[in-house]
């Protein structure tokens, strides 16, 4: 039985340590998903959380300015002005009418400040969007690995 206890302790220590690391990583990177409509109803601390918002890029709204790119996302009849301030180039799939997922937080004027933009091309040619074979196209996100 003593051996079992040793194993138990060893396993416990490993799992607990990794669990702790997971919890740290979770706190660092958790991001809330919201729809554009929901965003306007958020109050207080919920507004300062890191969040992800999805929508369709409004036709003709992309304006490339110095230091940032402005565009408008629309979804469920509402619109959201967005400023992308990230340093990575926007993905090739980011064009008018593409589905975009922006990550960041809203500023006090109701404009969304995005650090990451992911985009998936609108499935103009396919009735049911399929995906892209083995891996999803994703350009604007990077990891430290």
């Amino acid at each position, binding site marked *: 039985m003593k*051996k*079992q206890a*040793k*194993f138990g302790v*060893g*396993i416990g220590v*490993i*799992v607990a*340590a*990794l669990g702790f*690391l*997971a919890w*740290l*990583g*979770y706190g*660092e*990177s*958790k*991001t*809330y*998903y*919201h*729809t554009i409509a929901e965003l306007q109803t958020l109050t207080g601390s919920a507004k300062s959380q890191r969040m*992800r918002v*999805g929508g369709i890029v409004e036709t003709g709204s992309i304006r*490339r*300015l*110095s230091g940032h*790119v402005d565009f408008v996302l629309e979804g469920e009849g509402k619109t959201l002005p967005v400023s992308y301030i990230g340093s*990575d*180039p*926007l*993905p*090739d*799939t980011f*064009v*008018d009418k593409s589905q975009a*997922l922006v990550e960041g937080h809203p500023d006090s004027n109701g404009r969304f400040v995005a650090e990451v933009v992911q985009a998936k*091309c609108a499935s*103009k*040619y*396919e*009735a*049911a*969007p*399929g*995906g*892209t*074979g*083995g*891996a*999803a*196209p*994703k*350009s604007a*996100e*990077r*990891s*430290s*690995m």
Partner: protein
Amino acid sequence: MDVFGSFALVLAFVCAVYAFGGGIAAIVTRHPLLIKSTRQAGMATCCLIFLATFSLEYLFFSDNFSNAYVVAHSNRDLSTFYKIAALWSGQEGSLLFWSFLLAIYVFSVLITYRNKNGELMPYVGVVMAGVQIFFLTLNNFVESPFRALAVPGANGAMDLVARADGNGLTPLLQYPEMVIHPPNLYSGYTGFTIPFAFALGALLARYPGEKWIHLTRKWTMIAWMFQSMGILLGAHWAYAVLGWGGYWGWDPVENASLLPWLTGTAFLHSVMMQEKRGMMKVWNVWLVFCTFLLCILGTFLTRSGVVSSVHAFANSSIGNWFVGFMGIILLVCFGAYFKNRDYLKSENQLDSIVSRESSFLFNNLILLVSCVAVLSGTLFPVFSEWFTGNRISVGAPFFNKVNIPIGLLLLFLTGVGPLLAWRKTSTESLKRNFGWPLGIGLAAGVIALVFGFREFYSWICLLLCVFVASTVLMEFYRGARVIRARSGASFMASAVDLTMRNTRRYGGYIVHMGMVFVFIGLAGAAFNRDLQKDMRQGDTMQIGPYTLVLQGFETKPEKNYTAQRMLVEVLRDKKPMMMLYPEKRRFTTTVENGTMVAIYSTLKEDLYVVYAGTSPDTQLPVLHAYLNPLVKWIWFGGVVVVFGTLVALLPNRRAVLVLSGAQQPAAQPIAHGLTPSVTLREGHD
């Protein structure tokens, strides 16, 4: 041809149902003719799936634009090479391709064991047919690739039409990696069906554990090898095509491919516990079950977009089918387990914490923890929405924080595990086996510190890599020395001879060595650098030892796209080295763009150059350059892993040498686990 294809698919479905139902009847009645006919029905299913797949390819090659799938994924200008790849570029074709690859495996299994393992095979056949039925249901009734193109006609009915040309293949897929990556990954996903079928079949048939494990070893390794290749090719595609300078972003789809790899790797190791010591039987069965479930989950995540989209199931109804299928599998697995769990009783207990068993145990535990972490992180948005109503995702920091230490622990075990004896290892043998490698590893660590190496994880990784590589090389050295002493052959020849005598053991070492190379490459990521600059003609940019000079800019029309490329000259120490051509492609058939990264790759580092668009301020082209150290080691390590797996798949060459005296390997393999004589390690180790 589309009628032919859909007809073949329907027939395949019918045959699969017969193979399934008839197979159950055959198990109950044990009627030899029924057993034979269901096996043949299984083979017929596979052949019909082959026919259906070939007929879809034929539609692509004959530019048949009356088929909706061909219209959506091909055009006349598409090259032959990519017309093959167009098969799996969309939902319907991918699922057919899944069935196709599965059919190759099923057919091979049915042919290989047609006259063997009579008690087990009917069960295996039924399980395989069950899986085929699911995918054929999708192919036939949910996502058929043979739908004719139709538009709403005048009287409300649908009119069949044909287009002059198709929409073309998504530019992101028009890269050579994208032609070989999905087949590899899918071969991995589908391949794990075979060990699953054997495990479940053996459990239902109460078939002896060592036997089914022995039978499936080869199939598991093949699936594992494809899965490894698929993952690395996917990473390479992301690296060379997406243009963000990295190869792994913890994207749900990437994670999905990693999950079965983790449990599959755990399984490949823990089966040895069952073979040698009759332990972990329940664990092994569940590992296989989980691996297969994760394969289905991976396919589901890839195909349904459940995680990457903002709303669950936004894109496809296919998700419900997959969830249902996974539910059924889980029910069947639990049912079989509770019915026959007495058959999985362990024959031995763990003896010591410093033993081969415990190293396997920890290896499995750690792989499982990693799997659980990646799985929960991937599905976090789905579960958080269920439980709290808020959809919350976690990003790269979460995955890295958990998986980097796990990877390093695994690396440590890779070095330690194979050299520990079964049951219990003496302090004396620990010293003998680990003294040198540990010393060399520490020395490397100290040297790195002296040279200003300050990244903690990378430093540990380097130290461990040197340690593991030394243990592996020492094993080859010791074994080859013994052979050389007897045969007098050269050292290399002795090492090859050694490997061929126990392919499984030494093939495994080669795989471990490959993983060491992969880890070296991963460790380099801590030192990545990048720079971005608006470039006028003649402007220069300095990154690391390289000077980049923009020599020009050109626009060139190609067959189905227009290329804009920067002509970048690379100098090193003021000496011109070469030209790099980062490129943007604007495709004529779609509104999308494509990026072509230019990479100059050496073992030391990659110079990775991207044409990042036009600057809104200056209207000048922007050059984004990355200096990524050691990345090439990852791809090289992948090649070594595949080579090692292939070696391990070879049958052992019979030993020519006479075994010395009383030491018979077969009689007492366990007690000699640490004896450095090679001849004692014949057979499965």
